């Protein structure tokens, strides 16, 4: 029997285990709550391990996640910076295009209203030396440009053509020392010769000291040089100084102030009148509202700010107290003690209203009136108070007699 059991031990164990599980299965199906303890054990054993695993996972994942986030953020930052730089460049380019379009529009408008005939040109190069103020324009003899033609913008004159090639031309700017043009002032019609000063300025020569030129006065081309048609703006006199024989007048050429890139070459100039001087509008009456009313305390504190003010106030009090008018002869007693409740005068010729002291222990207010000339009145005190009359207290000096 033992050998039989030994021989089929494994089968026996298998049967026992399977049958036991079948019973357990039947029991757990019939009574799910009855096997709760087995589930509880299983869950209790597994849960701590799962918690550790979850904590480890979340920590490791968090670190990696943050790392990759940061890495991504850095990459995104690079991308965004590149995009921003690209957009900046595009923005600059578009702004430049817009400015160019505006300038071209202005030139076209100017060409329409001006009687002269122009050809628009673009400044494409500048001189290679810093001493000369020469630019190269993209229009030449093929576009009817000839030497000696005026180069202008709607804001003012720019220069003149000194050499014309088939497809380009050289222009001497007004700031070059070699440049010269006849000009006339707008207000006083003073004529002169415009020369470049080498820097950004120009000077106007040959203006006699007797002639009148105001600072800020506008100069226009006179047309005498037969290069620039009459009536083109040149600039406002910035500095006007008296010289020994001639005035020293400096101005900034208005045609160059905007940094021209597109210009007009005057192919056939037509003289135009100098625009009439318009005086600035006279000063108009400006309404000012009433000042902010100051209270008495504000007025006093605002007025009495120095020792001299305080001394003056003291003397005025003294004069009131002793009925003395300064400047009318006699000397008041400067050593007289003035009671503390004596009010300072508010304004000459005014009477302050008496203060109500009923039911208070404070000294009575003093009602002060400027004494009439030749009379001597003692200061009045209010009755019914505990304090002695202010005028009597400590008053050693007699009331001064008016002369």
């Amino acid at each position, binding site marked *: 029997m033992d050998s039989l059991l*030994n*021989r089929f*031990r494994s089968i026996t164990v298998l049967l026992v285990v399977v049958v036991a599980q079948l019973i357990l*299965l039947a029991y757990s199906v019939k009574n799910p709550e009855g096997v709760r303890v087995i589930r509880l*054990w299983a*869950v209790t054993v597994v849960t701590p391990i*799962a918690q550790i695993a*979850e904590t480890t996972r979340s920590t490791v994942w968090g670190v990696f996640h943050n790392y990759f986030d940061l890495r991504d953020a850095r990459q995104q930052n690079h991308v965004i910076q590149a995009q921003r730089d690209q957009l900046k460049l595009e923005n600059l380019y578009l702004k430049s295009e817009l400015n160019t379009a505006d300038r071209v529009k202005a030139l076209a408008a100017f060409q329409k209203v001006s009687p002269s005939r122009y050809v628009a040109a673009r400044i494409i190069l500048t001189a290679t030396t810093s001493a000369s103020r020469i630019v190269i324009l993209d229009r030449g003899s093929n576009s009817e440009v000839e030497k000696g033609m005026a180069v202008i913008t709607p804001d003012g004159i720019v220069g003149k053509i000194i050499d014309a090639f088939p497809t380009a031309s050289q222009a001497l700017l007004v700031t070059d020392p070699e440049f010269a043009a006849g000009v006339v002032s707008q207000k006083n019609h003073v004529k002169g010769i415009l020369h470049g000063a080498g820097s950004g300025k120009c000077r106007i020569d040959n203006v006699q000291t007797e002639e009148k030129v105001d600072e800020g006065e506008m100069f226009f081309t006179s047309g005498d040089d037969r290069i620039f048609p009459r009536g083109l703006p040149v600039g406002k006199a910035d500095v006007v100084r008296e010289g020994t024989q001639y005035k020293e007048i400096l101005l900034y050429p208005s045609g160059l102030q905007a940094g021209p890139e597109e210009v007009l070459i005057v192919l056939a100039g037509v003289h135009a009148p100098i625009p009439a001087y318009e005086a600035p509008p006279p000063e108009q009456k400006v309404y000012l509202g009433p000042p902010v009313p100051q209270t008495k305390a504000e007025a006093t504190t605002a007025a009495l700010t120095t020792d001299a003010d305080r001394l003056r106030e003291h003397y005025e009090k003294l004069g009131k107290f002793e009925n003395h008018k300064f400047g009318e002869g006699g000397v008041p007693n400067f050593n007289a003690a003035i009671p503390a409740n004596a009010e300072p005068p508010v304004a000459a010729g005014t009477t302050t209203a008496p203060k109500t002291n009923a039911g208070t222990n404070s000294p009575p207010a003093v009602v002060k009136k400027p004494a009439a000339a030749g009379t001597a009145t003692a200061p009045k005190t209010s009755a019914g108070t505990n304090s002695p009359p202010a005028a009597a207290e400590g008053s050693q000096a007699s009331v001064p007699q008016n002369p």
Partner: protein
Amino acid sequence: MPYSETSGDRIITSHQRGRVARFRAWVLVGVPFGALIFQAYVPLFYPPLAYLDLALLVTIYFAMMRHSAINGILVGCAMGLAQDALAHNPLGMYGISKTLVGFFAASIGVRIDVSQSFVRLLACVVFYVFHQFLFWLISRALLEKLVAFDWRQTLILSGFNAIVGLALFHFLDKLKDKD
């Protein structure tokens, strides 16, 4: 002349005795426990891994390598009941299935050299299908659940489990006690 033992539990020759794998205690406890944890935890983050029956693979491995039917029965029973408890199945569904798998795996391990990869792969496929079939049978026969047995899915998953099992067995071979 080969030594023969006919104890019922082990019918092995001396040559086969040399192939019986021995494991340290922590491996015998830790690996099944780890398999259960893995099966309960990892599919939370990677749902396809729910199709991987790591508990079954561990049962097959220990049953085959230990060459002991009783060991196989006990490992299968414990793994199955734990799986039932954690899966909120009626207790015994996986228990009975894995008990039978453990028994038959141990029986095969005794008779066949299961250290070869192809044998392991085939054993995994067969036992996976057998396990699923048993589970379906118990569900249908004992619990009267009208569930269909999807052969195709079962075969595909058996292949998947077999491939993973092959790698797992190779890893578990490293944990064998050399002595």
